[in-house]
């Protein structure tokens, strides 16, 4: 979907500012999400409960998107990973409670028009994220210490 169509949809479907940010960060564009966008979204999860749910609703929709929109899924895993580290404690609770959404992505499949297996990155990301969410101690220590995970989550350029 083009940038123009996306911005029209943002207006006509009545998405909030926070939701527009998440939609843009997890779009079908072949680049991103960049660190600054993810940092901004993570900060917004602290704002208030309504904003938190607005953000999670979009991430949830994107995580359950169809194969053709595999970039939505992959980028949402990245944003969720980031928010698990830098976002509010509510993100951690949400991820634990709904872990089956991420767990079941470990077998995600999609072959694009060129015959490329574009599901591979999603399967790997879902596997890593599942392991992290289930390992309370590791998640706690990574939430305390930025350096240990920053290199993994940042530096996403092209998919």
């Amino acid at each position, binding site marked *: 979907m083009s940038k123009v169509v996306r911005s029209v949809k943002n207006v006509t479907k009545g998405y909030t500012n926070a939701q527009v940010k998440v939609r843009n960060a997890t779009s079908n564009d072949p680049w991103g999400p960049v660190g600054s966008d993810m940092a901004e979204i993570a900060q917004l999860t602290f704002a208030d409960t309504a904003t*938190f*749910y607005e953000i*999670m*609703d979009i991430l*949830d929709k994107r995580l*359950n998107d*169809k*194969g053709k929109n595999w970039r939505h899924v992959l980028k949402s895993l990245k944003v969720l990973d980031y928010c698990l580290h830098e976002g509010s404690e*509510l993100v951690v*609770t*949400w991820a634990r*409670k*709904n872990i*089956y*959404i991420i*767990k*079941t*992505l470990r*077998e*995600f*499949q999609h072959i694009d028009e060129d015959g490329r*297996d574009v599901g591979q990155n999603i399967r790997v990301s879902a596997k890593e994220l599942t392991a992290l969410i289930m390992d309370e101690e590791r998640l706690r220590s990574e939430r305390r210490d930025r350096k240990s995970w920053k290199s993994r989550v940042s530096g996403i350029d092209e998919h």
Partner: protein
Amino acid sequence: GPTRNVDMTKQEGELAINIKKATNTDETAPKRKHVRACIVYTWDHKSSLSFWAGMKVQPILADEVQTFKALITVHKVLQEGHPVALKEAQANVGWLESLRRGAGHGEGVRGYGKLIEEYVFFLRAKLAFHRQHQEFNGTFEYEEYISLKSINDPNEGYETITDLMTLQDQIDNFQKLIFAHIPHTAHSECRISALVPLVQESYGIYKFITSMLRAMHTTLGDDDALAPLRERYNMQHYRLVKFYYECGQLRYLTSLITVPRLPQDPPGLLAEDDERPGL
């Protein structure tokens, strides 16, 4: 706590469509997105009743490929679905049995007859195990507390390990039958996809048995009493190495899942053994 915001009424209708598409007549693997939707449904609703009801209205007995795909889908939902799915499945053993009878006793036009029969036999064994041992989840994901619980009562631990090993033998029989039925033509993916849950389940069981046997050796301090279990463990280890090796040769399978790598020889189980397998 924070939950997902889903339209429960919309999901009900979508479930029926997903079941229908997962079990259609195409001789391919059940599409993951449809199977996943069935799994997610049981978590969102904390119930699998609509899943079973939806399965039963499908005309899956009319076609052996459909029957086989339905069994794969059921197996995946039992493994990855909400724990209640394992409990609610107990009331549907009769329906599973009817699929076996429906497949008849021959090979079937497309050669699924025996596979269907063996799949039903295996799923019944799996459900019987879970009825006896309700502390295990559908994929036997490792939980430390269960091995600790079982070693408090060595008799119970011995029995649980024996039951796990019996189930492991049944997986081994079934995978051999599947390998014997993989055609060297197109349409092999439908049969190969049934190996996916078997690889996952056998590995979960293997990890459990390894950890429970170690714990038993440490607490019991009677290596002789456990000798029969060690012997059986070693035999199963070698069979599993062979099974995973053969799975590793199937490109379609390795594109779907990572096949576990086991050491060539079984890891030590005795209390004084230092080597630990890379589990």
